[in-house]
């Protein structure tokens, strides 16, 4: 067991204080001069068990945190957020955007010894990404075939132009490859490999004890030289957030990803020099807090009411007092972390202005009788404590301008059903999770014609032809500069109409042992393969 207080000698004390000083500026380069150490077990907090572990058929951080170490994607993001090849070495697209060719790395084998070839890529793309993978099925909607002229070449053929920069930004999440020989013939969803994954990654699956832990050991035949450093990764299933914080302190856990601890515990551990608490390494998992309006309520279909609601809520006050350093003021559906698409803050904004809110409501004809203009039902999503706090804040803010809000709480399944299928809400609030390209995660919140029941899509009863047009044009625009301009236009339009308001921007918070090296060095680090992660003595 680790006894940190016994370890302190002069050298480590100096190193530690240097590290703390450097951490403020850059937690990653602080130890650049150290030689990586092989060995060690890395213990990871796993808060919510998933039904399976294969990232080729389920795009969620709960799967990547495990499956992303065992299976690999064609492309990932580097430290600056630019696409970098993993299983793919290089790629090119034809000028019409309908053909994208990937050249694959040679000499890679699956954990069971079989060679990795373009057949695996073609099989995964056609049968998993296109048919099963959430978000993938939308992204690859117009994929017609993947040709494999030789084992190192996969040619993706599209019916409509596919912007290369959209594909490359989507593939880190939606481009994990599974082995054809293990999945061919038979029901992919029921394949036992989903719970005992076999991949090409730096760690080999060993054991999954449901409700307790998952173990993966280092892959001695990994294709990158001198990698990985760790001997073993253990994911421990701990559902209670406070208990997970205690386990971090007891030295039983090294890493709690994706804001897995309570806000107060994260703030407390950030003052403890045994831990690094930071949003670094999660830029690719930015999210915004929402207020979703149901236009079936006549009050809310009036744009003055939606704007009044936005003006009535003091967002900076809420962030300062409840979320602290882990959040900032948002400016729309595309967060400021998205260097390729962020349009800047100069789109219509709704700063706190109670008098204006009251004036707008009066103008819309909703006079206060006995202090109450009308009542609304607010459904908060159960994903995080920030949403719960935010819903109470909305309730109190709106009561000051004469709108009574009743909060109706549900668990996950109930929330999705009531909001996106039954439309039994007036206001809803949750997270919009941004996935590196608006076409992957964001435009579905605004594009009309979404099938009823599809979660996190436009179910507001709102339709705008101009917005639909902008979204469709951007989807097939091949010139990156023009695409960016189209999305800036899109943000301006939706911030004007305000079917959904996204006033807070958050990035997941990582809590990790200060002994860990090479961590948080890419924008989606928690999901990546950790081939270069190591633990110092």
């Amino acid at each position, binding site marked *: *067991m680790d*006894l940190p207080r016994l370890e302190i000698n002069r050298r480590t004390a100096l190193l530690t204080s240097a590290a703390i000083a450097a951490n403020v500026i850059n937690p990653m380069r602080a130890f650049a001069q150290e030689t990586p150490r092989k060995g060690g*077990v890395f213990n990871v907090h796993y808060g*919510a*068990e*998933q*039904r*399976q572990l294969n990232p080729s058929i*389920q*795009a*969620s*951080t*709960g799967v990547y945190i495990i499956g992303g170490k065992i299976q690999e994607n064609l492309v990932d993001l580097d430290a600056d957020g630019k696409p970098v090849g993993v299983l793919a070495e290089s790629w090119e697209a034809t000028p019409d955007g309908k053909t994208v060719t990937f050249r694959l790395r040679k000499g890679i084998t699956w954990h069971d010894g079989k060679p990795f070839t373009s057949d695996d890529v073609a099989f995964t793309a056609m049968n998993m990404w296109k048919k*099963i993978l*959430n*978000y993938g*099925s*939308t992204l690859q909607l117009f994929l017609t075939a993947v040709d494999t002229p030789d084992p190192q070449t996969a040619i993706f053929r599209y019916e409509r132009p596919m912007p290369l920069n959209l594909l490359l930004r989507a593939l880190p999440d939606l481009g994990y490859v599974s082995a054809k020989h293990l999945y061919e013939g038979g029901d992919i*969803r*029921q394949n036992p490999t*989903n*719970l005992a994954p076999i991949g090409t990654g730096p760690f080999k699956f060993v054991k999954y004890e*449901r*409700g*307790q*832990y998952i*173990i993966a050991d280092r892959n001695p035949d990994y294709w990158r030289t001198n990698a990985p450093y760790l001997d073993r990764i*253990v994911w*421990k*299933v*701990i*559902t*209670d957030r*406070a*208990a997970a914080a*205690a*386990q971090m*302190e*007891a030295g*039983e856990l090294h890493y709690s990803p994706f804001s897995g601890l309570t806000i107060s515990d994260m703030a407390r551990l950030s003052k403890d020099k045994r831990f690094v608490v930071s949003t670094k390494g999660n830029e690719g998992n930015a999210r915004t807090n929402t207020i979703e309006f149901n236009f079936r309520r006549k009050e809310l279909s009036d744009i003055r009411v939606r704007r009044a609601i936005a003006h009535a809520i003091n967002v900076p006050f809420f962030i300062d007092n409840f979320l602290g350093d882990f959040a900032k003021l948002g400016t729309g559906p595309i967060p400021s972390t998205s260097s390729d698409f962020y349009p800047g803050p100069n789109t219509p904004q709704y700063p706190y202005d109670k008098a204006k809110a009251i004036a707008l409501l009066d103008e819309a004809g909703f006079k206060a009788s006995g202090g109450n203009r009308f009542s609304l039902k607010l459904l908060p999503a159960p994903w995080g404590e920030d949403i719960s706090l935010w819903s109470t804040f909305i309730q109190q803010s709106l009561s000051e301008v004469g709108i009574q809000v009743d909060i109706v709480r*549900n*668990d*996950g*399944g*109930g*929330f*999705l*059903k*009531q909001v996106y*299928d*039954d439309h039994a809400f007036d206001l809803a609030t949750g997270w919009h*999770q941004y996935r590196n390209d608006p076409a992957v*995660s964001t435009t579905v919140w605004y594009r009309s014609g*979404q*099938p*009823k*029941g*599809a*979660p*996190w899509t436009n179910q507001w009863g709102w339709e705008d032809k101009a917005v639909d047009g902008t979204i469709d044009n951007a989807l097939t625009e091949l010139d990156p500069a023009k695409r960016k301009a189209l999305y800036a236009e899109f943000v301006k339009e939706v911030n004007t109409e305000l079917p959904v308001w996204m006033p807070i921007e958050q990035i997941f918070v990582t809590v990790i042992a200060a002994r860990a090296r090479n961590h948080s060095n890419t924008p989606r680090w928690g999901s990546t393969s950790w081939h270069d992660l190591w633990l110092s003595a």
Partner: protein
Amino acid sequence: MRILSLAGRRLAASIPTLFLILIGVFLLLQLAPGDTVDALMAQMGGGDAATARELRKFYGLDLSVPAQLANYLWRLVRLDLGFSSIYGKPVATVILERLPPTILLMTASLSFAFFFGLIFGVIAARGVNRWPDTLISTLGLIFYATPSFWFGLMAIVVFSVYLQWLPPGGFEDIGTVQTGIWRIADIASHLVLPTLTLGLIFLAIYLRIMRASMLEVSNLDFVRTARAKGLDETHVVTRHVLRNALLPMVTLIGLQAGTMLGGSVVVESVFSLPGLGRLAYESVVQRDLNTLLGIVFVSALLVITVNFIVDLLYARLDPRIAAEG
């Protein structure tokens, strides 16, 4: 034996109850908004409508509610608990895997509560209204009033974070593979804190009951007779008072076996134990109907079994019950 037939009759009467409970839970869960596919979508962070439709078919949710219920009951008659949608394996297997930690925890904390409740109850009763009684009763009240999650977290902070005496959670050590006696010792060390957390709350109840029951029995005529025939105090307490005072305690065990299963959701979550309570909670959130019904079924069986044993114990403690029927 009359008592056996009595207990047997009660056992038979519990079977229709069991079916009613299962149907009730099934229908109650239909009232909850959302199904297991909605819950899966929530977990995945999104998916399109076609995927959802296909998943509903995959999980057999495209059938009507009565058809689903009929299917379930027909399977149950053939002792088939069905397939778990979150675990992708038979419910019976899932429950069997989770049963040992729950039963270990339950037995350990019930025994702890019963044993210490008995001792402290006797001590408090013998020193009634003097300082041992006041001290024990006050402590009991404090234990009873403290929420178990707080107790658990504080125990972790003190014994695992600061003193580093005991592991903060989990069922056994994952780092090293142990066998035989060392594995038992390892699991035992992991169960100390959860057992204390769960047991302390019940301890409070047991000691109050034991104290009251001791005081009541010690005023009865046969105790006076025992004293009058010159028995010493220890003899009177152990042979005459205690045995008669134990009956309410035994009743309580039967009643609380059920409560213990429910109460352990919190303790299992705080100590990351892979038990039935957490499984039940997860099944509700994930709308995994088969697993939830399976757990209700197994829990009901456990409660019935414990009550059956309690019935037999009554007869052992108080021969009049067996004689009169």
